[in-house]
């Protein structure tokens, strides 16, 4: 059964069909939301709205992604501002979980239950009459059929992630919140899970997942929210933000057989706006990374210089995020 076929089966079940939010109302709405713990501000004045589709919540560790997801899931009250899911506050309102699926970051799942028991447990707590059937169908979606009768305690980290996703999907929620869902998955399952999220979003669901890995977000999320130090640093279409990230000023260290001669050649090109000779080699500043890559190869050949090493000096995700915040 393909993902699409399996999802169509879910959609045919009237008991579990999602109730889409009115077209005009966003499924998720944050308005100046903040959350602090004593003097520590975890989320600071964040506002955005999300409709159907997959949105990636990107940010380095400690950016406030989990706090934000816990607020959306109703497990944390905002210290200020407003958090609405499907038009109402999720805090202290268990009935909202009929329409929300949550995959928490923490790995622990009842180790004594089998995969099938666990997903069926979720279905029964959702009050589903056809809990067994729904559980088996959802397990098939995450390709865990072969292992569903094994105790979760024997699962690998990736398998636990997939069974957690199945548990959160079994009642076919309108809004799906996933905290680092691809952690521990092997590449094949990661791609299958990404495809599954894409298919669910195509059917009108709102999916928000957090990650600190750019490539994960790039593959799944068309929309992106970038959080840094509790603030929303950027939001919008992934490609636009990706371009922003790529075309930011980059610092690159180049070592060659003759740094001084290479510096002279590079300085003549408009893609380079600063070159400095250091004890480690040439420190080159450019705002056009792709153009610089092409330039460097040609310039070294023209100058008769052999390149020994080219190292990006500020390529960590944190530095990318810092740049976005400073803009």
């Amino acid at each position, binding site marked *: 059964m393909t993902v699409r076929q399996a999802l169509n089966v879910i959609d045919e079940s009237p*008991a579990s069909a999602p109730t889409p939010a009115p077209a005009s109302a966003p499924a998720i709405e944050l308005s100046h939301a903040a*959350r602090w*713990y004593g003097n520590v501000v*975890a989320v600071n004045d964040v506002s955005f709205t999300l409709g159907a589709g997959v949105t990636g919540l990107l*940010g380095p*560790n*400690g*950016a*406030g*992604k*989990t*706090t934000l997801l*816990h607020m959306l*899931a*109703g*497990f*944390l*009250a905002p210290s200020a501002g407003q958090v609405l899911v499907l038009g109402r506050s999720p805090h*202290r309102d*268990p*009935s*909202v*979980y*009929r329409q*929300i699926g*949550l995959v*928490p*970051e*923490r790995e*622990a*799942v*009842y180790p*004594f*239950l089998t995969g099938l028991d*666990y997903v069926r*447990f*979720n279905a*029964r*707590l*959702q*009050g*589903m*009459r056809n809990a067994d059937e729904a559980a088996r169908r959802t397990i098939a979606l995450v390709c865990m059929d072969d292992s569903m009768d094994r105790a979760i305690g024997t699962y690998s980290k990736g398998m636990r992630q997939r069974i957690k996703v199945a*548990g*959160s999907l079994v009642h076919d929620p309108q809004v799906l919140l996933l*905290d*680092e869902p691809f952690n521990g998955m092997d590449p094949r399952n990661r791609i299958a899970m990404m495809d599954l999220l894409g298919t669910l979003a195509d059917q009108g669901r709102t999916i928000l997942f*957090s990650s*600190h890995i750019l490539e994960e977000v790039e593959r799944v999320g068309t929309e992106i929210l970038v959080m840094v130090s509790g603030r929303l640093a950027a939001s919008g279409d992934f490609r636009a933000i990706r371009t922003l990230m790529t075309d930011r000023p980059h610092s690159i260290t180049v070592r060659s057989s003759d740094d001084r001669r290479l510096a002279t050649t590079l300085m003549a090109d408009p893609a380079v706006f600063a070159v400095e000779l250091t004890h480690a080699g040439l420190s080159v500043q450019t705002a056009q990374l792709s153009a610089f890559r092409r330039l460097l190869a040609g310039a070294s050949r023209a100058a008769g210089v052999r390149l020994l090493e080219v190292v990006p000096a500020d390529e960590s995700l944190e530095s990318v995020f810092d740049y976005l915040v400073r803009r």
Partner: protein
Amino acid sequence: MNPMAAIPEIMRVTFRQLLGRRRTLLLVLLAMLPVALAIAFRLGGQTDVERFSRRIFDTVSMTILLPLVAILFGSGAFGAEIDDGTVVYLLAKPVPRWMVIAAKAVSAAAMAILLTGAATALAGWIDLVPAGNDGLLATEAQVLAMVVGSACYVSLFLALSLFTRRALVIGIGYMLVWEGALSFMLPGIANLSIRQYALGASAAIYQLPVQEARLSADTAFILSGVLVVAALAVATWKLMRFELPGGSD
């Protein structure tokens, strides 16, 4: 959709959580202590109600077995789930919080009653029932004390486990200091002692010849009921306000 269907499901998982631990095996061994003593008494020909009630029921079952078993099950019904984060799978569901508390409390109390009640009944059957009608009534009264005591200890320490991770330590402190020492020295504490509620309730069936039973059966039942309802109400209140930490991200 039937929200009440959640109760047996939560109970099933709670039973598995509580039974799956090594400490349950230790508690079963502990429960064997009054039975072993009853066998020893029987072999030694000491099978009168008074001697049994004082030396086995009061000293072992009431003072050690009941509080230890019930506090462990009560504080463990939620404790591990909160520590490892699995409680989120329970709470991210459209299940009223009172229902979650009720299911957890009934599961933990049932386990405690089963263990302490069975051990007490078996010990009584070995030593007291052969002694005649008084022995049978004394055994029934002792089992009732286990039922009332289990319900009270479980409710109180289940509620406490939602406020602190040290519920078990506090429980053992309560058992040793409050009930073990202070209640002997300060008779007024009887109104605030689960041990006294359990002993008092047993008088509804038979006046056990134990030294410091200070409450009448009616008072004991009323105070036990108040304690159970209040503890579960506070637990529900706390669970409605349960918050997950923000995490490292």
